């Protein structure tokens, strides 16, 4: 015995691996090594093992975490297979910092304690940047540094905790949903049948429906109830037992602990009474409690699946096969997962675009309703990005693939929805911790009730304590928040509103001040010719001016120029176009009515004043002027339109007592013009981004503020606001950091979003209030012994059903 024994973690007993007592415990000499043990028992056992030459026991035993799930060798191999780069392409995403992220679906997650456990454990693995567990969808989002940790190591870390995790694949989700529903339906069926039989007997026994009830008959009835209840307890109630066990392992008992305890002890005591033929039986309470709890869980599951399904359905709509165009021009069918960046694909009318790509055809009309919820046809021009998931409506189109699989915009939208579901609003967190605390209090309270009743009426003590346990189970409290939150997020997503953070559900309704950006927010952001003023000229009419401006501007790359390239169908020839930076364009043309070519300028006021120093513009808003050396021909005002639904939305917000303030970098006079049209009282123009920031910060001293603006340019201001809202032109989604993203390009989405969050908050508050009133109110009644076990079961179940039904209103 010369080889040293393997070491165990510090501060645990060498024999039983339990924590050592504080005074350090005792020691024992094993293989010439002094090791610590926790008690005389362990000391004696260890000595015996040493004496009998059984030390190999210490050499080969498993000293790892006792919660670990043993993985079979082939499973371990499967995990390492996931390290393959090609395979990972299909379900991981990369970002610009070289971080990789993945969504895992987790088996065996039953409660929030599990979520906590996983977050803590994975967070400690080297290289892991972010772990977000979504107990609702049973998914874990991990972001990690691929150089520091392999995917298989992460999966292994999950296994160590006792959870089997595999990359999430949307295709399997529907099956998983079905499996879960069947799991509950089967158990509900058994519980329902059992409950009906047992209740019938119980009613008969209670109300003396069977008039000449002999003791023999009574015992027979008891036995029948006993037999009917047994499958209900051992089959139907399994989900509660499993959840209770998990939560105990995590050291954070959840409400299934008192449930399990109540079910088993009621059943045990009733079985004992039946066998001994004396006392009382409460089989009907066992079946009823199980049945109603299962109904609650089943509804919760349905609500949850409905919320998740919306997102996964959209992924399912992506085709599995794409038509790739070969260099020879022939078409080839390939699986979408094999598409590479730069491939050219053809999409037939009526089919779904398989990957994000730049349009190669001239135009395309697509329906992006999967992405935005908006079913209007959208026109795309050449080189614009067509998004995976949108449906091609007209002629066949060709795309050059720019993003596939997890990198597509659709995938990032789904990821956002998942992320929102995994972050809980503070109120929901509060309800959850309250429910957790309640559990341990309830256990103590029932114990106390039992002791008190031992003095008053020892025969009743057990049943009263049990009633306390059942009646005060905080099921309603723990259902209150998650059901309301998933409902609200589901409804928002359906209207094309994405929340990056579910906390917004709580903050948004409290907002009293909204800052709005002008361009692209109140207005459409699409520049168009607003006004055209032509000076009278004997030969050159308005059509001629339009034609020449259009011809010259088509050479320009100035942002305003794009709005001036489609003014008329008429065309004229221009030559020698040159750009004078900061001024405009000069060209040579032949005006109608003459044969001689002459120069013409299109550009700023300064540009035409070089030729006509005395010229005074007629239109205040004009930015573009057209002139020949002889005369000024026209002045133009290019601007964007106010969104058609902006005035009504602003009015609605103001009617609700919300202050709307406009912030813009545009000229004060232009800003005021728009503000007047919209009846916005406070307008600040000529602002630099830093000025905007200062305004928002100042307003925040009065209360939380929201900022709605362009996600790309107003970044810092948006980040400063308590709630940032932006219109997601879906393609830019990845770059926007706003809390709320309105995918439908309508301003009214803002009021819509506010209405939904208001309702959600109301429902959440109602739920919590109701659950608290019930749970606290029932305590004294139950402790006083006024509640029999079956009444307690009904009360508890009704209180959770009320909460559930209240939350289901959000799904309408």
């Amino acid at each position, binding site marked *: 015995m010369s080889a040293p024994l393997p070491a165990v973690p510090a501060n645990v007993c060498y*024999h*039983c*691996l*339990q*924590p050592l*007592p504080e005074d350090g415990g005792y020691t024992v000499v094993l293989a010439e090594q002094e090791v610590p043990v*926790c*008690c*005389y*028992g*362990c000391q*004696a*056992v260890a*000595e*015996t*093992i040493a*004496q*009998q*030459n*059984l030390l*190999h*026991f210490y050499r080969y*035993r498993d000293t790892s975490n*006792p*919660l670990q*799930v*043993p993985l079979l060798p082939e499973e371990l191999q499967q995990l390492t297979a996931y390290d393959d780069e090609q395979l990972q392409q299909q379900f991981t995403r990369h970002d610009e910092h070289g971080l990789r992220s993945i969504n895992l679906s987790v088996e065996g997650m039953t409660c929030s304690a599990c979520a906590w456990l996983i977050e803590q454990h994975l967070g400690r693995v080297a290289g892991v940047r972010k772990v977000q567990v979504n107990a609702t969808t049973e998914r874990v989002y991990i972001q990690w540094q691929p150089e520091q940790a392999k995917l298989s190591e992460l999966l292994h870390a999950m296994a160590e905790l*006792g959870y089997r995790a595999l990359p999430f694949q949307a295709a399997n989700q529907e099956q998983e949903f079905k499996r879960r529903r069947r799991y509950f339906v089967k158990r509900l069926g058994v519980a329902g049948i059992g409950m009906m039989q047992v209740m019938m007997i119980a009613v008969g026994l209670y109300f003396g429906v069977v008039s000449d009830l002999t003791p023999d008959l009574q015992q027979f009835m008891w036995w029948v109830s006993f037999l009917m209840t047994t499958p209900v307890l051992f089959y139907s109630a399994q989900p509660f037992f499993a959840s209770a*066990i998990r*939560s*105990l*392992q*995590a*050291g*954070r*008992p959840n409400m299934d*602990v008192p449930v399990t305890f109540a079910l088993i002890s009621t059943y045990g005591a009733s079985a004992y009474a039946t066998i001994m033929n004396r006392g009382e039986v409460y089989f009907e309470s066992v079946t009823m409690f199980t049945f109603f709890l299962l109904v609650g869980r089943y509804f919760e599951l349905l609500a949850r699946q409905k919320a998740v399904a919306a997102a996964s359905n959209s992924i399912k709509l992506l085709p599995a096969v794409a038509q790739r165009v070969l260099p020879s021009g022939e078409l080839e069918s390939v699986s979408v997962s094999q598409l590479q960046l730069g491939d050219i694909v053809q999409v037939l009318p009526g089919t779904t675009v398989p990957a994000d790509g730049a349009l190669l055809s001239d135009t395309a009309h697509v329906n992006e309703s999967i992405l935005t919820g908006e079913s209007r046809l959208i026109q795309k021009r050449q080189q614009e990005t067509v998004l995976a998931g949108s449906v091609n409506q007209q002629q066949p189109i060709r795309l050059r693939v720019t993003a596939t699989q997890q990198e597509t915009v659709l995938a990032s939208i789904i990821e956002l929805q998942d992320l929102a579901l995994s972050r809980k609003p503070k109120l929901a967190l509060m309800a959850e911790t309250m429910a957790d605390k309640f559990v341990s209090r309830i*256990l103590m309270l029932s*114990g106390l009730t*039992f*002791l008190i009743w*031992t*003095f008053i009426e*020892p025969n009743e003590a057990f049943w009263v304590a049990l009633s306390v346990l059942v009646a005060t189970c905080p099921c309603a409290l723990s259902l209150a928040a998650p059901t309301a939150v998933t409902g609200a997020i589901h409804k928002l997503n359906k209207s094309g509103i994405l929340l990056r953070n579910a906390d917004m559900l709580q903050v948004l309704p409290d907002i009293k001040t909204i800052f709005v950006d002008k361009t692209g927010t109140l207005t459409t952001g699409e520049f168009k010719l607003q006004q055209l003023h032509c000076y009278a000229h004997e030969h050159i009419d308005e059509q001629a001016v339009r034609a020449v401006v259009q011809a010259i501007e088509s050479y320009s790359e100035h942002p305003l120029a794009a709005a001036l390239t489609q003014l008329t169908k008429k065309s004229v020839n221009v030559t020698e176009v040159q750009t004078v930076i900061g001024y405009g364009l000069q060209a040579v043309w032949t005006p109608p009515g003459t044969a001689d070519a002459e120069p013409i300028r299109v550009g700023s006021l300064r540009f035409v004043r070089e030729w006509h120093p005395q010229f005074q513009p007629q239109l205040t808003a004009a930015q573009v002027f057209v002139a020949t050396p002889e005369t000024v021909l026209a002045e133009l005002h290019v601007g964007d339109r106010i969104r058609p639904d902006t005035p009504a939305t602003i009015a609605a917000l103001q009617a609700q007592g919300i202050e709307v303030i406009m912030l813009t970098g545009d000229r004060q006079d232009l800003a005021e013009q728009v503000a007047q049209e919209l009846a916005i009282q406070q307008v600040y123009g000529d602002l630099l981004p830093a000025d905007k920031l200062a305004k928002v910060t100042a307003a925040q001293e009065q209360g939380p503020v929201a900022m709605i603006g362009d996600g790309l340019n107003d970044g810092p201001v948006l980040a400063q606001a308590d709630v940032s809202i932006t219109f997601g032109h879906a393609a830019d989604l990845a770059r926007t950091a706003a809390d709320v993203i309105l995918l439908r390009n309508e301003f009214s989405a803002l009021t819509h979003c506010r209405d939904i969050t208001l309702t959600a908050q109301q429902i959440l508050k109602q739920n919590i209030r109701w659950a608290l009133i019930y749970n606290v109110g029932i305590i004294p009644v139950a402790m006083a012994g006024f509640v029999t076990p079956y009444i307690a079961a009904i009360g508890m179940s009704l209180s959770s059903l009320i909460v559930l039904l209240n939350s289901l209103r959000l799904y309408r």
Partner: protein
Amino acid sequence: MMHDWLPALFMGLAGAGHCLMMCGGIAAAVTGTTRPWQVVVYNLGRITSYAIAGAIIAATLGGLANVAPHGLIVLRILAAFVLVAFGLYLGQWWFGLRHLERLGLPWWRKLQPWAARLRQGQVTTPGLFLAGMLWGWLPCGLVYSALSWAALSGSATSGAFYMLLFGLGTFPAMVGFGWFSRSVQQLLQAHGFRQLMGGLMILYGLWTLIIALKQLQVL
């Protein structure tokens, strides 16, 4: 008093996690093979020792109690305290029970050489049974609290019966050591589970105490 047999069985079941950690290793190591019947024989030996201990303690203490006034009730109060201590031990709140374990140490020192001797020969069925019997005398707080309960029963037969039930309670944990799915083992050893069981034991101890005090008409 026969209705008090339930806690004895329960104590065995509740202590399963403790048994697994303390003796699971020996059970596996001593039997060497995992043949089920050998494990059963070995454990039967252990339980037999428990029953013998139960008979002895119940007969002596029970006899004493019958002589002294309120003797049985005093024993009951003692047992209640041991039960509470056991609950605290299970829940890992207080390890006072370790001092009780110390009482068994001298006994064990005497038996230890025998265990070593048994080990040297061929593994036979009677040998295994004897080894199991020796194992039964390992100092163990769990066993001592069960014994304090058995002492209440008043007679040698019922004392043996209580300890038999206690042993049966530990049976699944020890015999099933190799067969149990790990998830069950995980549960039994989980901190939360042990605390819950500890809490129950404390509650039961307090209840016993109240009943005993009521019988003394103190309350």
